[in-house]
């Protein structure tokens, strides 16, 4: 009887220790998970910020100015455009 009790006592202690360890492990992993989530959110925000920055760099105003001033380009006019009709997706052609 005493032996059985001792065995049970040891089992209880071991299981309790295991529980504590698991709890600890869970919290550790949870904290790590939180950190990763935060990082993901931050990266997403950076992406958004960089997208905006790229858009700000590519506004029609800036593109037009750079093309005109630095690259000496000009707007295409029908007079210098040749329209070709290829096999691609059908384009609308005025009758």
């Amino acid at each position, binding site marked *: 009887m005493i032996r059985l009790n001792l065995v049970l006592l040891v089992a209880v202690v071991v299981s309790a220790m295991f529980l504590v360890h698991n709890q600890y492990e869970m919290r550790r992993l949870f904290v790590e998970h939180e950190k990763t989530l935060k990082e993901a959110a931050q990266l997403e925000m950076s992406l*958004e910020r960089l997208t905006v920055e790229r858009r700000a760099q590519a506004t029609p105003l800036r593109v037009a100015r750079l093309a005109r001033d630095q690259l000496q380009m000009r707007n295409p006019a029908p007079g210098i455009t040749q329209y070709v009709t290829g096999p691609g997706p059908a384009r609308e052609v005025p009758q």
Partner: protein
Amino acid sequence: MSSRSVQLSSSPLLTSKTPVWRSKLIVATIAVSFAGLAVRAAYVQVIDNAFFKRQGEVRFARTLELPANRGRILDRNGLLLATSVPAPSIWANPEDMERDPEKLRQLARLLEMMPADLEKKLANEDKTFVWLKRQLDEPVVKEILALDIKGVYSIKEYKRLYPEGEAAAHVVGFTNVEDVGQEGMELVFQKQLAGRSGSRRVIKDRLGRVVEDIGEAVLPVDGEDLQLSIDNKVQFFAYQKLRDAVLEHKAKAGSVVILDAQSGEVLALANYPSYSPDKRVNLSGEQLRNRALTDTFEPGSTMKPLVISLALEKGVVKPESRIDTAPGRLTISGSTISDSHPHGTLTVNEVIQKSSNIGTVKIAMQMQPKDMWEIYTQVGFGQKPQVPFPGVVSGRLRPYKTWRPIEQATMSYGYGLSTSLFQLARAYTVFSHDGEVIPASLMKIENPISTAGVRVISEEHALAVRKMLNLAAGPGGTAPKAQTVGYSVGGKTGTAHKQEGKGYSGKKYRGFFVGLAPIDRPRIVVAVMIDEPSNGRYFGGDVAAPVFSETVQQTLRLMGVQPDMSVKPQTSVQAVEESF
């Protein structure tokens, strides 16, 4: 051990006789105490545990708010018109703030403030919360926190960015510092854009780290993205050309509206003067007003094509019918109507081409006021346009029963009623969409083959009027400057005296132009208005038509429309030295 110790067995205490009740009393007392403890423990832990549970939670459980991201505003091609980026704010607690002069100087520099101003903000030491600066860039905030000043904190906030700047400002609008829409689409769609923030209960450890969730988290619902019908390139061109024209003619203001002629989508809607939505200091109402939708004016000659189309529909005239407009003056119940130049006998085509008031009035007087009122109403005058926008106006169109003959006459050439530029552009879809007027939309329409409209005039008569509009924009018309290279255009000029008090101002005008292109199969309707041009020229054909021409040229090219007129190829190419 002391020598005076006695053996236990010989202890005198053992020999004395003790009453049994004493030991029993002690056992009972201890038993009762334990029972009391057990009852108390059961009470605290099982029966009435709320209080202690709450006290425990107060010490380690926290509710975190999960903010929802505000939706973005996109143009029809998915390009950003407005989006949110994190912009932390810096606040301080003056009560227990560290006041190291050197650190404060650095802080002021990073905040781009004068040290004296910073001192002033922190002067009241009874306060526990003071904003130092809101919505800073993230790198700057990191530097500030790196200074490690006690009593200076950052808080996460978001800033709205508008990469298109002033070109699209009136359509997109802006939000305030609390991220709540104040103008334009940001205001109208505040609910959809804002989303709903969520929350979660968590347990924090002593270092402030989240270590466990309690219960289910309420997830935030992000705001929906909003896709407008605006095309950002068209919008930009339209704004640029409009601004150039307003500055060139020393005008007070101007507006331009571009509609897709088949789907009714608004491709561009711009006003000048405008503002930059990111930097809103010293804004005036003049800059903020979305004139194309909120300002009404008398449409003048741009009404004539509607009257003529009604006359064709009622069989009153044919395009080749001849109308005698000599001698350029006409008196109706005591009031005289005149043409700016006398024209003699004109065909109906020429009445539109030359914009003859007399010709139009003579045709209009053969019709009933009710019919005129009906066509005006059908194309949307006197009614609020069905677009979601703050401050949209309906203009004014009086019931036909109150029209006196002279009023019927003036209304045929656009005086005595008022409209916004947006309504005017939409009204012209009746010509571009083969006789059906279509609803205008600021939202992108998926699959826009052709929006169903309300039939007002027959297809044949819509085409006939388009041909007249083409003549008006051609040589011998009122607006040859509306022509483009490669694309056939048609349109009607309007020049109206501005109302001042009860009468009309002799010197203040509005010049406008409404037109469509290409003539055979219109793709766009463009309306331009220039308010108070004061640099010598003021006719719609001089001030507004060139803006029309340039925007049509660019817009049709961007839409990939092939020119419908033969163009002389220009092959002269300027050689530019390449640089290495």
